[in-house]
C-alpha cells in the first residue's frame, strides 16, 4: 500500500513537471507582452486578454497557414502509410532480383543525415520548377526510409501460410495486400502515421525554403515570421501561436496514443 502510494506520488510529480511548461504556455498566451516580461512574473494572467488570439485570426490570416499545414500533413501521412507499407511488403515477402540491393539502399538513405541532402534536394525541386507549390512541400517526404524499414520488419513476421492460403483461394496480390496485410499492420501504421504527422506538422526549414510566397507558408513558418523579429520577440503572440500549433498534435496523440505505444513496443522487440 505505502509502496504503491510512493509510486503514485512519483508519477504525479513527473506529470506535473511535464505539464507545467505547457500550462504556463497556455496561461502566457492570455497575457500581454509587458506582463510576460514583468519581474517578478506572475503565474496567472492578471488581466487576461484574448488579444493575441484575435491578432492571429484577424490580422495574420492564420486560416490560410493552417490549411496549408493540414493539406501538407494529411497528404504526407496518407502517402507514407500507403507507399511505405507497399514497399515494405514487397521487400518482406517477395523474391526478386536486386531485392537485397534495394533494401541496402533504403538502409543507406536512412543513415544519410537530412542536412546533407537538403540543398541538393532543393536544387532538384527548383530545377523541376516545383518551388512554391504543394507538390514541393509534399513530394520529398511522401515516403520515408524509416517507414519502409519499419513496415518491412513488421510484415516479415506475418506467417507466409496466411498469404499462401489467400493465394490458393484465388486472391490477387493487390487484394492480399489490401485485405490481409494492411489490416494486420494496425500498430505500425498508427506509429508511422503519428511520426509522419509530427514530422510534417513541425517541419520549419523545408517549407521556409520551398515556399516562395506567403500564401504557401505553413504554420511553423508563419509563427516564426510574425513572432520573432531581428531584435525583439512578441512573446504573447508566440505563445498563442504555439498553443494553436500544438493543439492538433495533442488531439492526434490523445486519440491514437494506445496504438502509438503498442506500435513502438512491437517493432522495438523485433
Amino acid at each position, binding site marked *: 500500500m505505502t509502496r504503491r502510494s510512493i509510486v503514485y506520488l512519483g508519477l504525479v510529480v513527473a506529470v506535473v513537471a511535464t505539464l507545467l511548461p505547457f500550462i504556463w504556455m497556455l496561461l502566457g498566451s492570455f497575457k500581454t507582452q509587458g506582463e510576460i516580461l514583468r519581474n517578478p512574473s506572475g503565474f496567472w494572467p492578471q488581466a487576461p486578454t484574448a488579444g493575441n488570439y484575435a491578432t492571429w485570426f484577424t490580422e495574420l490570416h492564420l486560416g490560410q497557414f493552417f490549411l496549408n499545414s493540414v493539406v501538407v500533413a494529411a497528404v504526407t501521412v496518407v502517402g507514407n502509410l500507403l507507399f511505405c507499407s507497399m514497399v515494405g511488403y514487397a521487400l518482406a515477402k517477395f523474391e526478386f532480383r536486386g531485392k537485397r*540491393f534495394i533494401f541496402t539502399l533504403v538502409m543507406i538513405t536512412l543513415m544519410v543525415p537530412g542536412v546533407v541532402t*537538403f540543398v541538393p534536394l532543393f536544387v532538384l525541386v527548383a530545377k523541376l520548377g516545383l518551388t512554391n507549390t504543394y507538390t514541393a512541400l509534399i513530394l520529398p517526404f511522401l515516403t520515408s526510409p524509416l517507414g519502409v524499414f519499419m513496415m518491412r520488419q513488421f510484415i516479415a513476421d506475418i506467417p507466409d501460410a496466411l498469404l499462401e492460403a489467400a493465394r490458393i483461394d484465388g486472391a490477387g496480390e493487390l487484394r492480399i495486400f489490401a485485405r490481409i496485410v494492411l489490416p494486420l499492420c494496425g500498430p505500425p501504421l498508427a506509429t508511422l502515421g503519428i511520426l509522419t504527422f509530427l514530422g510534417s506538422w513541425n517541419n520549419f526549414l523545408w517549407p*521556409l525554403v520551398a515556399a516562395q510566397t506567403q500564401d504557401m507558408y505553413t504554420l511553423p513558418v508563419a509563427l516564426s515570421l510574425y513572432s520573432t*523579429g531581428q*531584435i525583439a520577440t512578441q512573446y504573447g503572440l508566440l505563445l498563442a501561436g504555439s498553443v494553436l500549433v500544438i493543439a492538433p498534435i495533442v488531439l492526434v496523440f490523445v486519440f491514437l496514443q494506445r496504438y502509438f505505444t503498442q506500435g513502438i513496443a512491437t517493432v522495438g522487440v523485433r
Partner: protein
Amino acid sequence: MRNPTLKAASAALLALAALAACGRDATPEAAPAQNAPGQSAAPATLLVWAMGTDGDNLPKLTSKFEAENPGYKVEVTSIPWQDAAAKFRTAQAGGVTPDIAQVGTTLMGGITDAFQEVPAGTDTSVYFQGPLKSAQVGAQTVGVPWVVDTRVLYYRTDLAKKAGFDGPPKTWDELKAMAKGMQEKAGAKWGIRMSTTPDQELQNSLAFPWSNGGQIVSADGAKWTLNDPAVVDGVKFYQSLFTEKIADPAPDSGAGAAESAFVSGDLGILVAGPGESTALDEAGGDGFKDKYALATFPVQKSGTSFAGGSDLVVFKASKNGPAAWKFVEWLSKPEVQVEWYKISGALPAVQSAWQDPALSGDPRLGVFGEQLKDTNSPPPNATWLQVADVLGQQMEQVVKNGKDPAAALGEAQAAADSIGTGS
C-alpha cells in the same frame, strides 16, 4: 551480403555526387549587368523579399510607387528572420532568387556574390557611412542601407546622480567611474551589462577596438588585422570591465532579464538598440521613463558603435535589373524614408531624412541620429562568418577565462590568415 552492400554503397555515392554536381550547376551565371546610368528602366513586375513584419507593411509604400510609376508592379513576400541565411543561400543555389531583397546587415557576409553592384553614378554619400560598410566588399558596393540600427548607452540617471554624475559619461574613464560608482554608492549589483552570448558578443565588444582607432580588416579588404595594436588595446579595456567586476561575464540572457535588472536598479547601464525604450517602458511601468536617459558611446579616439539594420540588394539573376534599382532608388528618397519610419518605426538610413520633424523632434531618437554618424560594420567578406566564429571563441576566453588579449587576438589572427578574406 558483402558484394551487394558494396555495390549499393557505391551507387548511393554516385547518386549523391550527381546531386552535388547539380548544386554547382545551379549557381546562376553572372547576368549581364544592365545597369548603366541613364538607361531607362522598362516597367516590370518586381519580386521583393522583405524581412519579418516589414514585409507586411511594405505594400503600404509599394502602392505609392506603383501609382507614381505606371506599369510597375511590386510583389512582396515576408521572410522570417529565423534561418533567413539558409533561405537566401538555397534560393541562390536553386536559381530561384527574387529581384530585390531586404537583407539584415549581419546576414550579408558570404552571399554578396549573388548581388549586383550598384549602378554606376549612384551617390552613396547620402547614406550613413557605417551601415554602408556592410554592403561594401573591397572596392565594390553590392547594396545600399535601407533602415539602420545601432546601439547606444541606456543609463539610470538616478543611480548616476548618486555616483556623482549629472550627465552621461563622455570618456572611457568616465564610463568606468560611473559604472563603479553605481555599484559602490547606488547599490547596483553590476555597473554595465555586456551581452556575452556567442551571437551577441561581437556586436557589443567590437565597439571598443573601433573606438580606439582599430580596424579588423585592412582598408582594401585584402587582409584581416585582428591583432593590430589599437584593436588589442581596445579589447584590453573591454576585458577590464569584467576583471574589475563592473560587468557580469555571464549575464542572464533570458527574455526580459536585462530589462528587469535595469528596472530594479540591479544594473546601471545597458547597451541596446532603439527598440529598447519600448521594452523598458513596458517592463518599468508608469514613471520609469524619467529614471533613465540615452547617451552616445563614450569617446576614446572616437565613440564608435556597431551598425545594424538592413540593406537592399538586387540579385544578379534578376532579369529586371534597371527597374529593380529604380525601386531601390525610390525607397532611398528622404521623404519615402520618413514615410517608412512613420509606418514601421525603423530608422532611416538616408542622413537627410533625419531633418524631418518626425525624427528631429524626438530627443531620444536624436541620440541615435548622433550615434549613427559614428558607427562601423564588420566587412561582408565571404569568409567573415568563419572569422567571426574564431574571433568569438577567442573573445569568450578573454571575457570568461581572463586570457591575455594580445595572445588571444594573435591566435585569432593566425586562424584568420589561414581562412583568408575570400577576395
